[in-house]
């Protein structure tokens, strides 16, 4: 399959602090990548960097983001604007917050459409009703004539998904699209997102801290810790055969119906401001060794399409990887 998004050695920060450090991954056409990690690990910053949104104070320091054949980091503002919406869509965490509270939903749809192509209001409206139907939003007319506050959170999120799909972008970036929703509505929204791929062949990068959602939706999983991807691989591989201690603890932390309190990750994540040598997880890791304090971040391959940044547990001798990180 063709590569749609290639992120290469990307480092991103705010002000003087680097948040995302040296990240590389690829999303192929029609593929769903789940990025998991605890709050504050840089997931959302990564998403903002890919969008290159102005006004978010995110500064790209190093690396490049290839989208198709264009390097997003070197696009002009107008090129970026045209890219967003038409080829890149976003779903935000807070349902409804990405909608203007004082405007009817239909105006926001039409405005998004008209920003990218010349289309008459009525024609746009017809297309939008069709799109909503396609996404199982039956009473489209009523929804379009409502204000965001008149709809439920789940409904707003589905509207936001439809709004992101107005121009049928090739890639959807979803920033914790389910975390603010009820569990019952979560399932519905996850189904909806999966449907995007079925119907439109959309690739999706889904940021979440919900392992259940990732297990349901993703083809590949990237586990992020302190601004780096510490383990990456096929979903089944990661869930069945996790190698990085962080991934293991994350999986252990999922609550089960056995009445036991799940075991969390001990300690606190490091502050991004502190300089730290060696593996950034070593302070919280049960398997930490002396070498962990010294080694630079490097990745080792475990299997085909599965790599980790942990030396002691990878089972493979440590070496500066020549293996392509992005595959």
């Amino acid at each position, binding site marked *: 399959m063709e590569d749609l998004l290639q992120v290469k050695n990307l480092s991103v920060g705010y002000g003087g602090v680097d948040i995302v450090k040296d990240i590389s991954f690829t999303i192929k056409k029609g593929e769903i990548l789940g990025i998991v990690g605890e709050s504050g690990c840089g997931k959302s910053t990564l998403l903002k960097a890919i969008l290159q949104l102005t*006004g978010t104070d995110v500064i790209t320091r190093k690396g490049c983001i290839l989208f198709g054949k264009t390097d997003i980091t070197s696009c002009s503002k107008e090129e970026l*604007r045209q890219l967003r919406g038409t080829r890149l869509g*976003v779903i*935000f965490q807070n349902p409804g917050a990405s909608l*203007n509270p*004082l405007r009817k939903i239909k105006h926001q749809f039409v405005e998004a459409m008209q920003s990218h192509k010349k289309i008459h209001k009525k024609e746009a409206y017809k297309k939008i009703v069709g799109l909503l139907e396609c996404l199982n939003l039956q009473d489209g007319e009523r929804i379009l004539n409502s204000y965001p*506050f008149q709809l439920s959170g789940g409904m707003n999120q589905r509207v936001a998904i439809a709004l992101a799909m107005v121009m049928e972008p090739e890639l959807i970036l979803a920033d914790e699209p389910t975390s603010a929703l009820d569990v019952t509505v979560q399932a519905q929204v996850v189904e909806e997102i999966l449907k995007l791929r079925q119907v439109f062949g959309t690739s999706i990068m889904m940021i979440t801290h919900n392992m259940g959602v990732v297990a349901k939706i993703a083809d590949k999983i990237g586990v992020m810790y302190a601004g780096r991807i510490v383990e990456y691989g096929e979903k089944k591989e990661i869930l069945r055969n996790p190698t990085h201690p962080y991934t293991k603890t994350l999986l252990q932390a999922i609550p089960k119906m056995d009445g036991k309190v799940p075991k969390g990750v001990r300690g606190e994540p490091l502050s991004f401001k502190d300089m730290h040598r060696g593996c950034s997880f070593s302070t919280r890791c049960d398997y930490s060794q002396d070498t962990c304090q010294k080694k630079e971040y490097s990745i080792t391959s475990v299997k085909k399409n599965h790599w980790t940044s942990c030396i002691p547990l990878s089972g493979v001798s440590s070496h500066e990887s020549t293996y392509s990180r992005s595959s």
Partner: protein
Amino acid sequence: MFQYIIKRLLQLIPIMLGVTLLTFGLMYLAPGDPASMKLSAQGVPISQDIIEQTRIEMGLDNPFVLQYLTWLRNFLSGDMGKSYADHLPVAEKLMRALPKTIMLSISSMMVTLLVSIPIGILAAVKHNKASDYLIRCMTFIGVAMPNFFLSLLLIYFFALKLNWLPVLAEGSLKGLILPTVALSIAMSSRYIRQVRAVVLEELNKEYVVGARARGVKERIILYKNVLYNTMVTIITLIGLSIGSLLGGTVIVETIFIWPGLGKLVMDAIGARDYPVIQGFVVWMTFIYVMVNLIVDISYRLLDPRTYSS
């Protein structure tokens, strides 16, 4: 909506009654005997007999409540009493000054809005850039400059040195320019800062990020979304300003000898012309409650959340 307006109008009745009672009560309590004041204002030599007679004529020997009710009845039938100073009916005096004040209010409000909304938006969009600093610096001076000083400067340069405009306005259209400018400079300076602040706040809202993420044109985000949403705040500001402008701007009107309400009431206070002051206070109250009502109605029209919930 219609019901809402009716309900609000009915609520105004007790407010107005309360204010009139308070005004009347304050005048009643004020030191000095209205009868002797009236007589001395007319230059009548005061003797105890004449005072007593005038007191009875004015109904001052009646109990307070009766006096108030008589006053209120007359007031409602349009009779606000007569000025102590020149015997003209108060209503007539107010009505004569009112158009001048309305003229000045509208012209200075228009100038203020035309200047401050675009400049405020510009400052917000160019946040922390050179033009923003320049605008903020200018508005700082504008806010800090006392009105009377600015008026004098304007008269000095444009009337005396350049001879473009008359020194004394006297209610003519040409004479409107300087007082308008004097009022607008101070108001615009405040407005520009306010507009800048609300637009900045609005630009940081998530829906703006959302619209940008959808690739909506920046121009559309600004004019169709952000500006509209800031209107609620801006209209509140306008309401407050209109209220105080329609009460007459004492200093500017006095300096430019603009025959508006502000000057009228200043003269009345100087002469302890109680009926005029009373009439003026009731008028002010009326203006404020009406402007408030209009502002509230406009909230409902602008923000769908206020009437549906």
